[in-house]
């Protein structure tokens, strides 16, 4: 402890805090909302753990040994945020190099480790605060408040800034887009089954066998198609003709003679 400034209160590290311990907890399934993959929350945490493990004085850190250990740990841990750790490793090696340089005037010589020690102490103090905060958070976690939370108030509408011409053109756009309804009358068109029957009979008088397409034109209006269909069915019911369809969706075959062998076969 030869190098300790007498003004600096020398205190043992706080008992509650063990470097690296909390990160390790997070690994075995602690419900932390930011998942920490490494056992240490940062290079300073790792460094403090090393200082504790090596039982060295924080005010007189054997940099060469600690730097070596630091590199070993980085390698074995496979730390995720390697950049942060590598920066610290580089810093340690630089301090080590500075310590090797010949010293001039002893009065002006500044310990290259000073800044690192300051940061370590600052970090350790912050961890102390974390311990206090964590205890309190754990106490609060064990108490429930009422769960009701009112809805967030809706943000007020932005005031409308609009010129008269913009307004008028908007109205115009809306009016133009309104669909003009196409009004038309629905006229009931009665089917004409007797006429269809007559037409089929006259066709059958000319040809013994007909096809559906002979009876109705392709572009016939629906009422004609329906009339022809109903007339055809009526004639079939009366026994004047036979209707057959060789396979689904094929053209319907109409034959005059019910005993026609072709229609029998179908």
């Amino acid at each position: 402890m030869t190098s300790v400034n007498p003004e600096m209160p020398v205190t043992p590290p706080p008992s509650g805090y063990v470097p690296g311990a909390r990160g390790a907890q997070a690994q075995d399934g602690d419900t932390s909302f930011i998942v920490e993959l490494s056992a240490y929350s940062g290079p300073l945490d790792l460094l403090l753990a090393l200082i504790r493990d090596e039982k060295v004085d924080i005010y007189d850190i054997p940099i060469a040994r600690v730097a070596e250990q630091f590199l070993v740990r980085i390698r074995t841990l496979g730390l995720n945020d390697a950049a942060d750790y590598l920066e610290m490793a580089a810093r340690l090696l630089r301090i080590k190099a500075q310590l090797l340089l010949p010293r001039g005037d002893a009065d002006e010589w500044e310990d290259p480790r000073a800044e690192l020690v300051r940061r370590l102490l600052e970090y350790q103090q912050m961890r102390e605060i974390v311990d206090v905060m964590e205890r309190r958070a754990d106490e609060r976690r064990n108490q429930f408040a009422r769960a009701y939370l009112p809805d967030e108030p809706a943000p007020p509408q932005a005031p409308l800034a609009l010129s008269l011409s913009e307004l008028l053109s908007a109205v115009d756009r809306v009016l133009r887009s309104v669909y003009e309804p196409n009004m038309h009358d629905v006229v009931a068109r009665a089917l004409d089954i007797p006429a269809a029957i007559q037409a089929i009979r006259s066709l059958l008088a000319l040809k013994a066998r007909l096809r559906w397409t002979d009876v109705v034109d392709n572009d016939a209006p629906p009422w004609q198609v329906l009339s022809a269909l109903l007339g055809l069915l009526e004639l079939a019911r009366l026994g004047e003709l036979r209707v057959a369809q060789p396979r689904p969706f094929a053209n319907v075959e109409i034959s005059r003679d019910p005993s026609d062998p072709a229609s029998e076969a179908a």
Partner: protein
Amino acid sequence: MTPLAKLLEAALFASARPIPVDELAALDNDASDADINSALQEIRAHYDDEGHGVELVEIGGGWQILTRAEYTEAIERAQLAARPQRLSAAALETLAIIAYRQPIGRIEVEEIRGVNVGSVLKSLHERGLIDVVGRAEGLGRPLLYGTTPLFLEHFALRHLEELPRADELAIALRHTPVQVADAPPSEAEKAESSP
């Protein structure tokens, strides 16, 4: 209980968040802050003396009715309510630094923690534990962060001053560099460093 105490109890029951004293005072124009405080003490004593399952707690800059800790297990087992997730070490460290040094920018937090804290700050901001409180002067005008009332609630604090003062801690958090060693390194260090 007095009528004022009953009124405050109803208001505290209706609210999910702690209610500050000045907001409680708005419930009754005739009540002074002293009246409010004595009514709050009355409610607290009522819950404590008669053995209620809830208690009145001063927290997060206000007052709040909370269930007593001994019933937490049973409530959670019955899945009526769930304890919030614990914060990670990274989140706690970042919060501790912000709590003591606010308003503080990302770079300063990173200097103390020695790691990148961008994603941690984002998570804490999303959880409402910290907020942007301003911008620093200088290059890029970096955002400055501070803690929120929800932070106080989360850590069962009445106000920020309830956190341990830096000089009460074993090692003081200093802004100026600590003078470490005026003398050259110890003999052990010399022996190790020499080639």
